[in-house]
């Protein structure tokens, strides 16, 4: 132990303290120096600070730093640092109560924030006596232990014997309103040092003739709503009492009394109540926020205020009185109806404060409030009155079991591991009646006003305060999630929804489909246009080294639209876009929307006849990029060359105004009648998907991969999600999709943050590059049923921040339900389809149209704003698939029958079981086997055909069993040439629909006359594939490269045959299998073969030659 140099002479701590205070008094010209005095606030500047430091050096004899006052600007801290701290007695410490612990935890997560400051203001017409105020505040602190309480790590409360309350007086005469506001904001937002009580401070703003303001800031750790009332009452008495006796009739409370919560004996029963109430409660609330959700929410916030007159709330009040609800319960009910309307959620949890103040604490200042989660399941068709009754039941149940702390509930029933969301409840409501509150001083009564601290405790918190001037509704929102405009719009929608619901308390709640929300519909192209206005220089689309800014995209689309208009194409028209994905196709689609028309994306890789058929039936014109495509469609519709449209003389046009029911696009899917059917999708369905839904939000920082075929409706999500959110759409070339290695580089090089993959592609990626998605913010997958094994591998290798399972048919716009996949799902072995998107519904119904209960299985019906109008020019098909919705809150709604069989899981989630018909998903594409069967049967030489789909490791494999026509007694095989048949089918069907042809003598039938699929499958395996002569063993001897390539070829094709001249595409191979084969060859032989090269000569012989060339490095 080294001896500290003793200061000259022996001086007690108190003497030293007084000496330091004397130096401050001289320097600052003050009479009174207190612990809370801040050197710089009291007029100290840099010169003075050095002078004082020098004086302190002389006083202490220590070599103090000259900037010591910058380290210790407060007197108390400085005195303590010099060894003259406040009374050295050791403060009493105790453990935290559960309620304190909750706030303390938040403080540890967000240190130095004002999130739990309570700040109030009182305005007086005249000046205030600051000396009297200081004395009154100090007396208060002496009376109430909580006002002398501080908090230190790890988690202890300490109580000082004596404290003095900092009370600043600021001369703000003639100072602008803005400066005063800034001053007050700083006062209420400056964090307390929690270890240094009191956690209360005061500010008096003297505005001369304009009166004065008193601002009190206190930390919620030591104060609650009731305490604030107590403080007000006592402060009023003490300030008015000039006798100096410190108030009248006040008994000093016994020292050391502590607010420790007691766990009653029936705590276990209470916990059971909560376990039941909160079982499988949703972990998220679908608030329509407009900013991308960060990985972790901060506490920055703001608030939007609306004052309601008594008349405006009269309908609500009378309905609540009829049901005998307290005002608090009434506002809970109002909030529930508002949330149902704006989120579409019907199962929601909201937090409310609940007083834990017992009779013994009636007169005590302190924190006697805990949080209760209230869960409401609002059934379809419920009325506002039903909600009132539900609230009464839930709230009384909760209050009867409130002895369990919120913290315990989080631990016991905590929901998931989603770090971007608060556990249990993401929103809350508080209600206060301050009509009798305020300070009456010097004959003037000053109302209490709450001051915002620029923070948010929840994603959204509704603070309702009844004041003498009406009901003040404040929506405090997280500025991480909402812009001010979005929050204001949300708050107005909430209030309008409450209004509508209680105007007719016995009518079903206005539907969760928010079309009755006020506000003008903003179509998707207008949202892109606004991005172009706001950030014209930002990159909208990127393809390789080519980029297109928002400004240029907007300009081109406007010019294109003008050109289309000049050609007579506008609202009501449908324009085909037969283009590969890329800058041209995106620009064209946007231009078509700008013109007010709808676009029809057409897959150019499909056979010409199919393209012509689709364009003929669904489009009135086409925009093409080359003469070949123009020739292809020459006889079908008028075609416009993109480059000519872009140099039109027409003046660019502003984006057309359309209604939410105007058609945005038409997409063709496989049809069971043997022809594709065209799904007509309105604008409202697009914005319901992006940007309004919250399963993924897109922001300017996002780089969204464009990997989907434009003719597949996942492209809707990619293109419009990226562009409406102001992000960059990054186009991936076809070869990127065909090689996991290239995909990995693409993701890394382009800095992709959001992407969608079909399950097939995801599986391929996971097989060969499971860690490729690490840097992604959101990975969405869908289109087919997931593969649990691949997902587990993905999670093990380091998944992106968020993995979302998206489910839904094209008829309900890309996604109907979404689910964020968690490690728990994989552990439990169930990855559910999830819950409906906002403004959407999903029901599982049995054959008689009744809802199926939890655990049951039925057909999934989906509805809401994502619904298509129907199938183009197919009234009967539309009427059969889109049926009346008996559950909707709004009349006249429809539901789409998905044909998907699902199981109902707890919490309104669903698990995919299978199809009710012959539809299958092949690499994300929806395929009706009947369409393929019809195509095969149309071929010459085919007597009969049965098409069957069977699952394999690489997805679905389609088999076509073909019985050839027999020419008399001749051998049937002479008539049917499999190679020719394959070529013909390739000319008619898109690649993903091509079957592996298996020739059989005849189609066997079962006893009841149907095709005997089991018998057919037993004839199948690959030995018969495409080759009537049967298999032929590959050369096992000889060259090891030949043997390896052949073995892998057989493995991938699951065949026993491998002849050098076999064409991969004719023997059951397709691009996904090819990727797999090339990846295996890469692993086995350490060579990289490009798919493009392989497809130039997709025979075993050609492949072996390629491999050999790579191995020998021979470029020729």
């Amino acid at each position, binding site marked *: 132990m080294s001896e500290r140099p003793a200061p000259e002479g022996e001086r007690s701590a108190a003497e030293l303290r007084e000496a330091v205070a004397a130096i401050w008094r001289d320097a600052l010209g003050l009479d009174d120096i207190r612990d809370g005095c801040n050197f710089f606030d009291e007029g100290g500047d840099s010169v003075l600070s050095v002078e004082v430091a020098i004086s302190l050096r002389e006083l202490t004899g220590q070599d103090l730093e000259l900037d010591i006052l910058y380290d210790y600007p407060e007197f108390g801290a400085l005195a303590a640092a010099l060894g003259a701290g406040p009374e050295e007695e050791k403060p009493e410490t105790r453990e935290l109560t559960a309620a304190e612990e909750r706030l303390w935890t938040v403080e540890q997560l967000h240190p130095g924030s004002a999130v739990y400051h309570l700040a109030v203001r009182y305005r007086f017409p005249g000046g205030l006596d600051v000396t009297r105020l200081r004395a009154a505040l100090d007396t208060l602190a002496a009376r109430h232990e909580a006002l002398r309480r501080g908090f230190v790590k790890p988690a202890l409360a300490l109580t000082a014997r004596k404290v003095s309350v900092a009370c600043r007086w600021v001369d703000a005469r003639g100072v602008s309103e803005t400066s005063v506001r800034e001053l007050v904001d700083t006062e209420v937002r400056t964090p307390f040092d929690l270890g240094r009580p009191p956690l209360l401070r005061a500010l008096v703003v003297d505005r001369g003739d304009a009166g004065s303001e008193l601002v009190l800031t206190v930390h919620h750790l030591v104060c609650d709503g009731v305490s604030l009332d107590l403080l007000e009452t006592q402060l009023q008495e003490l300030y008015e009492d000039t006798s100096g006796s410190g108030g009248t009739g006040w008994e000093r409370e016994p020292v050391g009394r502590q607010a420790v919560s007691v766990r009653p004996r029936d705590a276990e029963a209470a916990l059971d109540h909560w376990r039941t109430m909160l079982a499988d409660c949703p972990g998220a609330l679908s608030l329509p926020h407009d900013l991308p959700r960060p990985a972790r929410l901060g506490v920055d916030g703001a608030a939007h205020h609306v004052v309601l007159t008594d008349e405006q709330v009269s309908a609500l009040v009378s309905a609540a009185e009829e049901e005998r609800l307290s005002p608090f319960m009434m506002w809970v009910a109002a909030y529930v109806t508002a949330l149902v309307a704006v989120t579409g959620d019907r199962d929601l949890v909201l937090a409310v404060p609940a007083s834990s103040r017992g009779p013994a604490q009636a007169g005590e200042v302190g924190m006697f409030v805990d949080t209760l989660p209230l869960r409401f399941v609002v059934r379809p068709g419920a009325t506002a009155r039903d909600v009132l009754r539900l609230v009464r039941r839930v709230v009384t149940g909760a209050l009867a079991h409130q002895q369990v702390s919120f913290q315990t509930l989080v631990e016991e029933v905590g929901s998931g591991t989603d770090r971007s969301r608060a556990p249990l409840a993401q929103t809350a409501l508080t209600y206060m009646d301050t009509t009798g509150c305020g300070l009456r001083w010097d004959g003037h009564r000053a109302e209490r006003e709450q001051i915002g601290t620029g923070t948010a405790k929840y994603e959204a918190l509704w603070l309702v305060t009844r004041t003498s001037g009406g009901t003040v509704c404040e929506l405090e929102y997280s500025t991480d999630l909402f812009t001010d405009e979005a929050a204001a719009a949300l708050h107005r929608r909430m209030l309008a929804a409450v209004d509508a619901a209680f105007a007719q308390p016995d009518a079903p709640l206005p539907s969760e489909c928010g079309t009755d929300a006020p506000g003008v519909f903003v179509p998707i192209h207008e949202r892109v246009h606004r991005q172009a206005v706001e950030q014209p220089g930002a990159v909208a689309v990127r393809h390789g080294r080519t980029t297109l800014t928002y400004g240029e995209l907007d300009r081109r689309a406007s010019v294109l639209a003008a050109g289309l208009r000049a050609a007579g194409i506008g609202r009501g028209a449908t324009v085909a876009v037969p283009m590969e994905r890329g800058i041209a196709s995106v620009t064209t689609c946007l231009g078509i929307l700008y013109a007010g028309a709808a676009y029809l994306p057409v897959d150019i890789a499909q056979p010409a006849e199919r393209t012509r058929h689709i364009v003929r039936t669904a489009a009135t014109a086409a925009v093409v990029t080359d003469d070949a495509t123009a020739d292809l469609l020459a006889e079908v519709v008028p075609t416009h060359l993109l480059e000519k449209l872009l140099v039109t003389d027409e003046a660019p046009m502003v984006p057309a105004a359309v209604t939410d029911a105007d058609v945005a696009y038409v997409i063709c899917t496989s049809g069971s009648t043997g022809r594709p059917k065209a799904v007509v999708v309105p604008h409202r369905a697009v914005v319901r998907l992006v940007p309004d839904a919250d399963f993924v939000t897109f922001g300017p920082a996002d780089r969204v991969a464009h990997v989907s075929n434009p003719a597949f409706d996942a492209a809707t999500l990619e293109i419009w999600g990226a562009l409406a959110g102001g992000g960059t759409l990054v186009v991936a070339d076809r070869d990127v999709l065909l090689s996991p290695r290239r995909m990995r580089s693409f993701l890394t090089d382009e800095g992709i943050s959001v992407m969608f993959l079909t399950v097939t592609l995801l599986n391929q990626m996971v097989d060969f590059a499971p860690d490729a998605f690490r840097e992604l913010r959101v990975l969405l997958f869908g289109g087919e049923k997931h593969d649990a094994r691949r997902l587990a591998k993905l999670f093990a290798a380091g998944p992106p921040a968020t993995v979302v399972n998206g489910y839904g048919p094209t008829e309900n716009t890309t996604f109907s339900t979404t689910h964020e996949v968690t490690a728990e799902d994989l552990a439990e072995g169930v990855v559910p389809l999830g819950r409906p998107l906002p403004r959407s519904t999903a029901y599982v119904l049995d054959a008689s149209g009744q809802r199926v209960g939890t655990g049951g299985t039925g057909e999934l019906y989906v509805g809401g704003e994502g619904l298509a*109008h129907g199938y183009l020019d197919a*009234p009967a098909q*539309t*009427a059969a698939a889109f*049926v*009346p919705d008996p559950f909707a809150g709004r*009349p*006249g709604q429809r539901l789409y029958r998905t044909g998907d069989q699902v199981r109902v899981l707890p919490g309104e989630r669903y698990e995919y079981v299978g199809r009710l018909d012959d539809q299958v998903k092949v690499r994300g594409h929806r395929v009706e086997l009947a369409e393929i069967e019809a195509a095969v049967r149309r071929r010459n030489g085919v007597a009969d055909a049965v098409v069957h789909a069977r699952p394999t490791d690489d997805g679905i494999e389609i088999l076509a069993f073909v019985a050839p026509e027999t020419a008399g007694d001749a051998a049937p095989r002479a008539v049917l040439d499999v190679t020719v048949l394959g070529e013909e089918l390739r000319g008619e069907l898109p690649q993903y629909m091509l079957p592996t042809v298996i020739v059989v003598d005849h189609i066997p039938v079962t006893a009841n006359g149907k095709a005997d699929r089991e018998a057919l499958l037993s004839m199948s395996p690959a030995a018969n594939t495409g080759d009537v002569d049967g298999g032929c063993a590959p050369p096992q001897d000889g060259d090891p490269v030949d043997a390896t390539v052949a073995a892998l070829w057989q493995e991938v094709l699951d065949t026993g045959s491998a002849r050098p001249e076999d064409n991969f595409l004719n023997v059951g191979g397709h691009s996904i299998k090819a990727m797999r084969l090339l990846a295996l060859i890469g692993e086995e032989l350490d060579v990289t073969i490009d798919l493009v090269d392989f497809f130039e000569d997709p025979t075993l012989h050609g492949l072996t030659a390629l491999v050999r060339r790579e191995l020998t490095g021979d470029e020729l």
Partner: protein
Amino acid sequence: MSEQTTETRYSVVHNDEEQYSLWAEGRPLPAGWHRTDFSGGREECLAHIDAVWTDMRPKSLRLAMGEN
């Protein structure tokens, strides 16, 4: 129950947007839907809908476009 067929009978229905569909006879019709006077077997009803539903745009869209 001497009838050979027990096929469910349907009504042809439409909503205020004049979108057509089917609804089993005997089940209460959801609010906002109206029965036409056509009923019959499923295929008959669909054939009828094919004949009468000639403009498949929702009524609100037809009206909005008519205003232009």
